[in-house]
């Protein structure tokens, strides 16, 4: 829900840029000797639509904030869940380290055993 409102505001920023672009195109077209009437009409319609959209969207956001804002700071946090999750990941990491040590110990024992067998074979 928050992301949608923020995305709507980002779209409003793009609309403002469109307003400026359309205004510039119209003035550029008027500066020419021969005007393209259809282009002028299209740009003008887009300019007016963008201005109306910007005004309506921003008015709606301000109205929503007027209804929702309390003036108090928000005191929620995700600290406890984050800490519990971090502890769970630490447990998993610890288990991984211990299993790694166990694996290395087994490999060392196997190597020693193989060396002993080779020595015995050489003696015989």
């Amino acid at each position, binding site marked *: *829900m*928050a992301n949608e*409102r*923020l995305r709507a*505001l980002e779209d*409003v*920023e793009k609309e*403002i*840029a469109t*307003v*400026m672009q359309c*205004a510039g195109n*119209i*003035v550029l077209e*008027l500066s020419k000797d021969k005007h393209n009437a259809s282009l002028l009409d299209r740009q003008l319609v887009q*300019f007016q639509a963008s*201005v109306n959209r*910007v*005004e309506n969207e*921003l*008015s709606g*956001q*301000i109205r929503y*904030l*007027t*209804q*929702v*804002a*309390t*003036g108090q700071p*928000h005191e*929620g*946090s*995700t600290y406890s*869940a*984050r800490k*519990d*999750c971090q*502890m*769970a*990941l630490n*447990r*998993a990491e610890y*288990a991984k380290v*211990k299993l790694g040590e166990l694996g290395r110990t087994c490999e060392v024992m196997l190597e020693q055993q193989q060396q002993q067998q080779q020595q015995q074979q050489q003696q015989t």
Partner: protein
Amino acid sequence: MATQRGLPQSKESLLQNYNKRLKDDIRSILDNFTEIIKTAKIEDETQVSRATQAEQDHYEMHVRAANIVRAGESLMKLVSDLKQFLILNDFPSVNDAISLQNQQLRSLQDECDKKLTSLRDEIAIDLYELEEEYYSSSYSQWDSTDLPLCEAYRRRDSWASPGSSCSSTQGDREDAEGPPSQEANPQQHLNGHGTSSIEKP
């Protein structure tokens, strides 16, 4: 509505300021654009010479274009302020974001613990078999203070059902060397990394 009266003065005045800025900037853009279009109209009769009039119109258009750009930048600043206000004061969305994050973190924690528990169970099964093999072989150096896992499980079963006989190959090894010490240690042996420090008597 009562919520509007409940707002502190600073927040209410801030939102009114946002409204005012919006209206002023939109009006500025529209008015200046309209005046530029009007100025672009060529008039035959002028009070001053054509060159002077052209120069004046040129300057006026520059200023009005700059006003339009300034109003556009002011609108961008207003959008940025609204985004900031929304992030800090839109409590429903902040609550939703917090609860979603908590849910994700808890599910990750549960999944992690579930996998660790299943790993523990698998290792316990293998350890049981390995110990049984080891302690029944001739290579074992069985310490009376160290209770094997398989023996601990057998004893636990026998405690649960006192009538049952606990007969095992290691049962013969239960000498009177230290039964209390053996009984004190199953906790320590069952929990691999020693959650409780039980001292030997």
